[in-house]
């Protein structure tokens, strides 16, 4: 390296040194941030493989000294914790809500983009308004309605208020507006009905935004905590985040087991993220929606 620098005039040599120094500093800072982001995850994973006595040791160990799977075995064999059932509960709610919102968002968004009808502006304005109203305003009456319908402690209670998503409609309208009218008109000349046009012509065109909306919706549903906690009061119907806090409160003083449960509940979604990371990150920046 220094041999190449020797041929350069002093000022340029200085500038190149400085650039290398700057790049090095940038990587150093970024890696410091990276470690800060990663260390809590690593700590969680390593703690889950410790024995309980080691997890309680002062000062704490980083690597497990006696690597053990006993925490995982204990959780998976716990009859009071049918983990598979909770996974199915969470999956049911997330998949059902994603499917209904994708269907309603694309259909209503398409309607707003490509059809003229009376009261259209009023209806769209109403959707924009509901986007602004935070969920905790409607939380209490929604609960009272579910109580009257006897849907407390039912997974259907997490589903019925989530069928229409104002944000999804807004986003789908934006995408449908970019579709050329000739596409639908050609299908009409070929004798397609309006429903066929939506289902066979429009929907396939919306693949990318639907995937984005679907992934983001799945993440939001999967991690939801407050509303599922209110609706699902019985243990066996709960979703994963709610079960995790319950598990924590029933296993005080056993940090290794709690960390193993956290790993089992947190890691699947992160592994999925590893595969779809480009799409997910693009989705978040494209929509600015959490």
């Amino acid at each position, binding site marked *: 390296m220094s041999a190449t620098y020797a041929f350069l005039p002093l000022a340029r040599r200085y500038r190149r040194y400085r650039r290398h120094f700057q*790049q090095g500093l940038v990587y150093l800072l970024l890696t410091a941030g990276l470690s800060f982001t990663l260390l809590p995850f690593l700590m*969680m994973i390593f703690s889950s493989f410790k024995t309980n006595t080691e997890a309680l040791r002062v000062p704490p160990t980083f690597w497990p000294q006696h690597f053990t799977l006993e925490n995982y075995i204990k959780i998976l064999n716990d009859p009071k914790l049918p983990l598979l059932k909770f996974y199915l509960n969470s999956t049911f709610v997330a998949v059902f809500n994603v499917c209904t919102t994708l269907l309603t968002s694309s259909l209503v968004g398409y309607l707003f983009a490509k*059809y003229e009808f009376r009261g259209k502006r009023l209806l769209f304005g109403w959707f924009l308004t509901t986007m602004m109203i935070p969920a905790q305003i*409607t939380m*209490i*009456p929604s609960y009272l309605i579910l109580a009257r319908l006897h849907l407390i402690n039912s997974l259907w209670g997490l589903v019925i208020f989530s069928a229409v998503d104002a944000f999804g409609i807004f986003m789908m309208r934006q995408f449908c507006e970019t579709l050329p009218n000739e596409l639908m008109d050609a299908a009409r000349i070929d004798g397609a009905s309006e429903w066929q046009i939506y289902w066979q012509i429009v929907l396939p065109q919306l693949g990318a935004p639907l995937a984005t909306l679907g992934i983001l919706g799945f993440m939001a549903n999967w991690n939801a905590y407050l509303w599922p906690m209110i609706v699902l009061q019985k243990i066996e119907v709960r979703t994963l985040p709610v079960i995790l806090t319950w598990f924590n409160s029933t296993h005080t003083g056993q940090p290794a087991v709690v960390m193993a449960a956290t790993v089992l509940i*947190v890691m699947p979604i992160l592994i999925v993220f590893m595969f779809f990371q480009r799409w*997910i*990150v693009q989705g*978040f920046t494209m929509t600015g929606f959490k």
Partner: protein
Amino acid sequence: MTSLAQGKNASPRLKSGLAIAKQRFVNSVTIPLLLYESLAIFVLGWAFVLMFFEYSPGRLGGPILGLGGSNPFVGLGHFIEMVSGNSVRAVLFRTSLRNTLIFAFAVLPLNLLITLPLAWLLEMVSRYKTLYRTIYFMPVLTSSVGVALIWMSMYDPQAGWLNAILRALGGKPVAWLSDPRAGFAGVSIAMWAVILAYLWQDYGYNMVIFIAALQGVPQELKEAAMIDGASSWQIFTRVTIPLIQPTLLFVCVMTMLSSFQVFDIIQVMTNGGPNNRTEVLLLDIYKNAFRYQSMGWAAAEAFVLFLVVMIVTVIQMRVLRTRWEY
């Protein structure tokens, strides 16, 4: 020629046929939609009415939605009590409002101080960009309950890492989440602890948005400034920042909105303690509505939270928009 004439004759009939088909399609979508939306309006109306009543679902009230009777109408009573009352719940409301403001106004600048430089640094490097971005983004997708449990074990007074580091540096261990007296800069240490956990979970999100905005800044403008002899710091403050102003506004509004509605992390980590030092509005609303069954009061609190969020959003839009006029 004949076909053209036929087309001309046929067109009104065809058009009206098409118009009917379209109208039928519109109706078959909008009618169920309107029914569903009337449910939403009903829910919203109920939420609005509730805050003028001393309502509890356990009591038998009047015939309409259980309002009236033993769930009496109190008018603006709840709001008057919030401002000037000395009852336990009124004092707790004021505490939680103050804590929410502290939380939000601490999170926003700290978040910007982390995310904007990180995004800027990440834009300067050429390799491992995706790797960095992926890892920084991981906490965003982690369930907040998981985040809370991970940080609780870090904050553990005995076996936690933070106290291990403190002891190694010769300091005294701190009860991060349970000491009501310990504080820093006038804010309790428990509040700082939940703020740190919240920031850790959240910064990847804003960072990714800033990266997208920075990529949108035209390279020519930066090069022109460099030729004029501007340092990279000057380019950042004088060229980049003004150009990403709309994104900055968006990020400020969204970060404020979500931190005013913080719930999960605090409910799991401290449940409002120690001594209500981390009691925030949404947590207070949740406790009043679903633990103490005092739903009229909780609905009034929710309305205040909504108003605060609206006011702060409007102020932010005003302040930041005037800047991007020039």
